[in-house]
């Protein structure tokens, strides 16, 4: 077991949650927004600003952005189905609300009630965090992301 030498003990305290984000692949296009029109080779200088920007709508350009919303498809997630309404301003997600939620049993309802409010902030955070995906995401997260995506598709974002 000489390989154990490679192992580094990191932290023996509670796991620290560093960033609140969701596995949500439109995060990349959203990030690209901050650098829209720039060649890809210059993008690396921009994301720092995007990552530290707390405001989801922080933009100083002079283009007039329209606020629109759409309801995503109702997605099965193993223990029920959920659909979301996504509001965008320009191409940035402004808000995500649960439009419909059906679960077969009370436990699932409780679970969903616990998970969904935080997924909301995760989608918004994903726009500023430099995350391309998440490993270990639950069915619930995946269904939420899928419904968000279908709403974004309807909005052509």
């Amino acid at each position, binding site marked *: *077991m000489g*390989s*154990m030498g*490679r*192992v*580094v003990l*990191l*932290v*023996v305290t*509670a*796991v*620290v*949650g*560093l*960033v*609140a*984000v969701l*596995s949500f*692949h439109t995060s*990349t*296009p959203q990030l*690209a*927004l901050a*650098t*829209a029109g*720039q*060649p*890809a*080779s210059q*993008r*690396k200088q921009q*994301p720092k600003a995007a*990552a*530290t920007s707390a405001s989801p709508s922080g933009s100083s350009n002079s*283009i007039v952005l329209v606020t629109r919303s759409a309801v995503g498809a109702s*997605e099965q997630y*193993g*223990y029920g189905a959920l659909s979301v309404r996504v509001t965008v301003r*320009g*191409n940035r997600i402004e808000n995500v609300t649960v439009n419909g939620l059906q679960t077969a049993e009370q436990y699932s309802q409780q679970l969903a009630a*616990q*998970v969904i409010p*935080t*997924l909301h*902030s995760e989608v918004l955070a994903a726009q500023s*965090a430099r*995350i*391309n*995906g*998440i*490993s*270990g*995401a*639950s*069915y619930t997260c*995946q*269904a939420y*992301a899928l419904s968000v*995506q279908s709403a974004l598709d309807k909005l*052509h974002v």
Partner: protein
Amino acid sequence: MTAGVSQSRTIGHAEKVMGTVVSFVVHPGALSAAAVRSALARACRTLHEADETFSTWKPQSPVSRLRRGEATVDELPTDVATVLGLCERAKAASAGWFDPWAMPGGVDPTGLVKGWAAERALAELVQSGVPAAMVNAGGDLAVHDRPAPTEPWRVGIRHPWRVDALACVIEADAAVATSGAYERGEHLIDPHSGRPLSKAASATVTGPSLAIADALATALVIAGEGEIGFVTALDGYDAYVIGPDGSELASDGIRFAPSA
């Protein structure tokens, strides 16, 4: 709408298959959107084919027939032999902590198939000329190249019990698989005893093959951090384990992304 014309625009897709959601992020490069769409369609077809072949829920799937002893491996599609060969490799590499032959109800390669299928879907995209892409099969990810020349793929690792946070963010250049004791319906069975067991709260394995990483992550969440050595003994593979007390252990090949 200015962003739609951005050169760095990616094309996304999500496909419901194999009892989960497989999502794609594709950097089209010089490919047209239509070319990417047809590459995605081919990639999704391979996922559905894998589901048809390996589903243990579909009574007539080749693997279901194998499990019932109605067919031998030789009589089934060659993918079955390929996957079982990978299962042998993962079983040996994990000192038996991953063992599809010890599952109740007969041989069950499910713990490796999702990763294998995602890897194949990614290969299909690459063959079609896609310069960079990520495939996320229900939390097991395979990536090709990079989103930008100096920018790695960044993968958040789900926190095992905090829904509003990630445990960490790591940089990925091939495969990342995570198994956790958190998801209902996830049957983590100790192959040595046949009983449910998960000594770790979450185990992440990175490496060149998502099929192997997927199997080893399942093995490691069952076996616990004390067994991390079976992962690090393999060339190119690394592991990150969160214990039931929240302690973290990572082998030195895990590259944590600087936090924003």
